[in-house]
């Protein structure tokens, strides 16, 4: 069962994550493979989307320049992810993150997408989602699943192009014009306003570093547990409410398992959080045997070390997996977690934030 969006909205979101919105009109577009007429009819029924045509290449290029990518997560979409998701890359390009034998650049990715759109190998579709002016220039679409809020003002779906709603006055431009943006190097893959990594490559570097920091943090704690001096016992008691041997063993085993996971964890196990949970640090499905970790926006602006650090958040999430730690979320934040250790040590040792703060040497 999909726990975030209904199936139809999931489909729509899938489209939207491979597209973006027009900054001027607020319409949301997805990039898809071209489809047959029969499929278009089915798409209209299922997705509420309409193919969008351009009179010429310049119109297409202008539209692309005026196109603000939705960022449902730190990973994109970028031109590269669109190409990859649309299966428009060779296997070698996918593997090496290159285009035409050269290192991938956003400019090259954009040019490739434009070419494919122009030659009809990819197509633009307008979805039934519409973004109010107040929410534009913001990489998220809050409550995007509440379809009615994002339909045009009269709640009807039109097959017309942008700006063509009867009585609909397009809002004033928000942000830079297409011409202004053209002057800059391709910033379409940027959108770093909320601490997002610029592209997959940057995201990968951040995650790689976070995993390294996590390993250092876990090994330091392991050593502290082995030494078990007064300081170690005080730390342990602060977050777990006891210093008994069985609790210590639980934490040692949990650290060992997470260390094992850390050493083999692949970057592609990280996924962007669904729109609904963008403002959370991260989440997992504890029974997921693939061990995916879904990352929200705050993760990307979290520090490398200290309380609520990236390394700590990863440990928190990994501890949830049933066969790693099976922890729950009973309490959040340092104050509530410390209080939990005092009032209910059994729950504290089972609480992911208590475990995280212990690892992070929170005070």
């Amino acid at each position, binding site marked *: 069962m999909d726990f975030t969006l209904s199936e139809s909205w999931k489909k729509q979101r899938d489209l939207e994550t491979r597209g973006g919105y027009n900054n001027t009109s607020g319409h949301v577009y997805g990039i898809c493979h071209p489809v047959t007429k029969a499929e278009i009819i089915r798409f209209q029924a299922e997705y509420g989307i309409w193919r969008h045509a351009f009179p010429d290449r310049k119109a297409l290029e202008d539209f692309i320049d005026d196109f603000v990518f939705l960022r449902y997560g730190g990973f994109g979409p970028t031109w590269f992810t669109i190409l990859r998701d649309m299966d428009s890359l060779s296997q070698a390009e996918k593997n090496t993150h290159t285009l035409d034998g050269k290192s991938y650049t956003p400019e090259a990715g954009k040019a490739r997408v434009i070419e494919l759109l122009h030659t009809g190998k990819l197509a633009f579709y307008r979805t039934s989602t519409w973004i109010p002016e107040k929410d534009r220039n913001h990489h998220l679409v809050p409550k995007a699943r509440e379809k009615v809020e994002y339909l045009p003002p009269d709640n009807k779906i039109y097959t017309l192009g942008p700006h063509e709603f009867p009585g609909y006055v397009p809002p004033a431009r928000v942000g830079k014009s297409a011409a202004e943006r053209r002057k800059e190097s391709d910033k379409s893959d940027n959108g770093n306003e909320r601490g997002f990594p610029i592209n997959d490559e940057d995201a990968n570097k951040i995650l790689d570093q976070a995993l390294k920091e996590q390993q250092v943090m876990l090994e330091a704690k392991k050593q502290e547990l082995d030494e078990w001096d007064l300081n170690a016992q005080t730390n342990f008691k602060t977050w777990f409410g006891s210093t008994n041997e069985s609790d210590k063993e639980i934490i040692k085993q949990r650290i060992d398992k997470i260390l094992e996971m850390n050493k083999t964890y692949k970057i592609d196990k990280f996924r962007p959080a669904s729109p609904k949970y963008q403002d959370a*640090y991260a989440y997992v499905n*504890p*029974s997921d045997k693939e061990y995916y970790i879904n990352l929200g926006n705050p993760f990307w602006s979290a520090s490398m070390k200290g309380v609520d650090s990236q390394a700590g958040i990863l440990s928190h999430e990994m501890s949830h997996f049933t066969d790693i730690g099976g922890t729950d*979320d009973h309490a959040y934040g340092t104050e*509530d977690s410390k209080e939990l250790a005092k009032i209910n040590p059994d729950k504290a040792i089972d609480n992911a934030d208590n475990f995280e703060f212990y690892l992070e040497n929170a005070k």
Partner: protein
Amino acid sequence: MNTNPVAVTLETELQNGDLIAILVFQNISTHSVFLDKYTAYLADEPINNLFKIADKNGVLLDYSGIQIKRRFNKNDFVELKAGASVKASVALNDWYKFQQGEHTYSILYSGFNHSYEKQKIFEMTSNEAVVKYVK
């Protein structure tokens, strides 16, 4: 001393093949309490594993929803005035992996309400409900 200001009662109901847990949170204190919507199942979807559902051998069912490290804001809380109560319901079979066939389960809700301004964290635990459920 137990100063938990909210009492929780749990009842179950079968509706079209779904096993529905009905939770009633009652403020038994003399002042307003601010309930975290997610802990009290007043939000759209569960994001925590707050039910302990055990088969006759005491084996707990796996939770199939998500666990989320969240940040709180005021919109996450609803005010429950002194003496007032609020009802929440959740289809347990959507979020827990029930065994095939007919089985008897014992069900308990237990959550901690997050602190809110001067209100400290407190525990909310329901009665235990026993129910037969066919999957």
